[in-house]
């Protein structure tokens, strides 16, 4: 082998470039570059077709389409990377606001109530994790069962109809969803946090190892059970928090919100962002971008005035074409990085 040894620091700092091109370069080198480009292209397309698309009002709508999916996607990425998945995330999303409601009605201040409700949500994750890891039930089945249990419980607690949050006027209700763009801000902050966790901490490495080679990880002393359980908890906590934000935003705790649809969109976002279903590989930023991609499509076609029957066809075709483009772009990118 003749080695053209690439200095290992090359990635971090190409020496002789101005800031602008350098930023472009750094972005281009990342795996998420292609899905970012595809999303940007869609963005430009919709803006050019309908001037209202790139208005502040619609950016707010776009953020609403994006942030709940993005936040659940973060958790699903962690789980998928370690070889698990959570079908109950969408139902935790619907369930958690009612836990909060319970606390608020018991006189707990909202802020503390949110913390407790999110803790309760992560308790669901703990249960998912324990049943999956300790007993050995496939996560698909554990979380499917859990989803049904939560769905029934939520409907019973809510009496089958949406409830208006009791403290709509409060500062907390603003912070937890009502203030414009606050949802997406939470999502961005959490994305940054999870990004660091997955790429720059032991937990992240162990998550990859657990999904990539469970046997090898065990041999190397990675506590794979704890990693899986922890990620189940994180996923549920994120989903629960997202549900709370969403409940405040629309002034309605809705027992039918979330559900399998939202879970499904979140897993799609993760996969679109480049996370494998088989475990061992995935990116947090990709998950966020995947959610944004889905948001742009849904928002864009709706604002274009596509009616619902056609909307499905537009969505389907756009997804496939975009992802073909995505594959093609990432090949191009890898080719270009050679030279």
């Amino acid at each position, binding site marked *: *082998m003749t*080695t*053209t*040894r*690439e200095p*290992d*620091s090359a*990635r971090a700092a190409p020496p002789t470039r101005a800031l602008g091109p350098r930023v472009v370069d750094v972005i281009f080198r990342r795996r998420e570059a292609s899905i970012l480009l595809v999303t940007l292209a869609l963005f430009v397309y919709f803006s050019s077709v309908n001037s209202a698309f790139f208005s502040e009002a619609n950016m707010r709508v776009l953020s609403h389409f994006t942030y709940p999916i993005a936040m659940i996607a973060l958790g699903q990425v962690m789980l998928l990377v370690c070889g698990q998945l959570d079908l109950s995330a969408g139902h935790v999303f619907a369930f958690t606001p009612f836990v909060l409601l319970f606390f608020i009605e018991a006189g707990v201040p909202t802020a503390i109530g949110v913390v407790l409700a999110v803790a309760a949500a992560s308790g669901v994750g703990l249960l998912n994790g324990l049943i999956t890891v300790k007993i050995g039930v496939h996560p698909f089945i554990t979380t499917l069962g859990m989803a049904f249990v939560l769905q029934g419980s939520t409907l019973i607690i809510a009496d089958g109809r949406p409830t208006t949050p009791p403290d709509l006027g409060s500062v907390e209700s603003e912070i937890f969803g009502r203030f414009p763009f606050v949802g997406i801000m939470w999502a961005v902050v959490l994305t940054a946090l999870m990004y*660091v966790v997955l790429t*720059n*901490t*032991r937990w992240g*490495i162990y998550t*990859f*190892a657990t*999904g*990539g*080679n469970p*046997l*090898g*990880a*065990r*041999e*190397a*002393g*990675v*506590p794979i059970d704890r990693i899986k359980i922890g990620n189940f908890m994180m996923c549920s906590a994120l989903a629960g928090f997202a549900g709370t934000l969403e409940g405040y935003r629309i002034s309605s705790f809705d027992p039918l919100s979330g559900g399998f649809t939202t879970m499904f969109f979140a897993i799609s976002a993760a996969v679109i962002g480049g996370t494998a279903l088989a475990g*061992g*590989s995935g990116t947090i930023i990709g998950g966020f971008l995947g959610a944004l991609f889905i948001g742009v499509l849904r928002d864009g076609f709706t604002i274009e005035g596509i009616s619902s029957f056609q909307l499905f066809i537009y969505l389907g075709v756009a997804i496939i074409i975009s992802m073909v483009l995505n594959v093609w772009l990432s090949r191009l990118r890898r080719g270009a990085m050679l030279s």
Partner: protein
Amino acid sequence: MSTDQSVDGYAIRTENIAKNFEAVVALEDVSIELQRGEVLGLIGDNGAGKSTLIKILTGFHRPDSGRIFINGEQVTPRSPSHARSLGIETVYQDLALVNELPVYMNMFLNKELRRGRLPLLNKRKMKQMAREHLDDMGVQLSSVGTEVTFLSGGQRQAIAVARAVYSDASIFLLDEPLAAMGAKESAIILNLIRDLKRKGDVSMMLIAHNYTQVVDVCDRVCLLQHGQITYNKPVGETSVQELTELVAAEYRLGNNGNASGK
């Protein structure tokens, strides 16, 4: 024998270890000792149970019965982490690499370097040290940032060996660490092993099918057969010839057995 804290002078001692996998009897009754400061060669046929013994010592498998003493204390490792906390480092035969992680993360798996007290990884340091280790082992590799999926067989093994050898453990269990290594790289690693030994207070169990290497670097050789240790001699009293004969004899016997069993 070295002057250490161990009560009985053994780094590892097992008594009557047995292990079945469903219908397969992997180990029947294994009693083996690894003295402090010693390099012990463990040889045996394919499927003799060598790797199983190693995995029991690292807590990956639990023995069905038998007792284990580590540094004189009776303790059955619960898990690889537990074994590591007892000072045991291992190169597994399957290498225990994570294909999706880059070379340097694999090399530092479960002993990641942090940035001071922060819970953040010190990637720069890990990369730099990974590079140094590979250079020391004479293994060429273009970038320590590449994923290990597509590395050559020897490159992969080098990472696993480096993971174990460059640590401050006192007991090393090496399961065929040279199987895929080139002649040159093997020689270097054998030297590393000798260096480690020279530093003292380090004990090693080495599984290998290449008896030249065994005789070259080991102090003592054990043969695992029929789930038991059937041969145990200092290297000085044996030779590549004798070891080969030993195994071949077993073959002629075993083959007959097979033939009659058909």
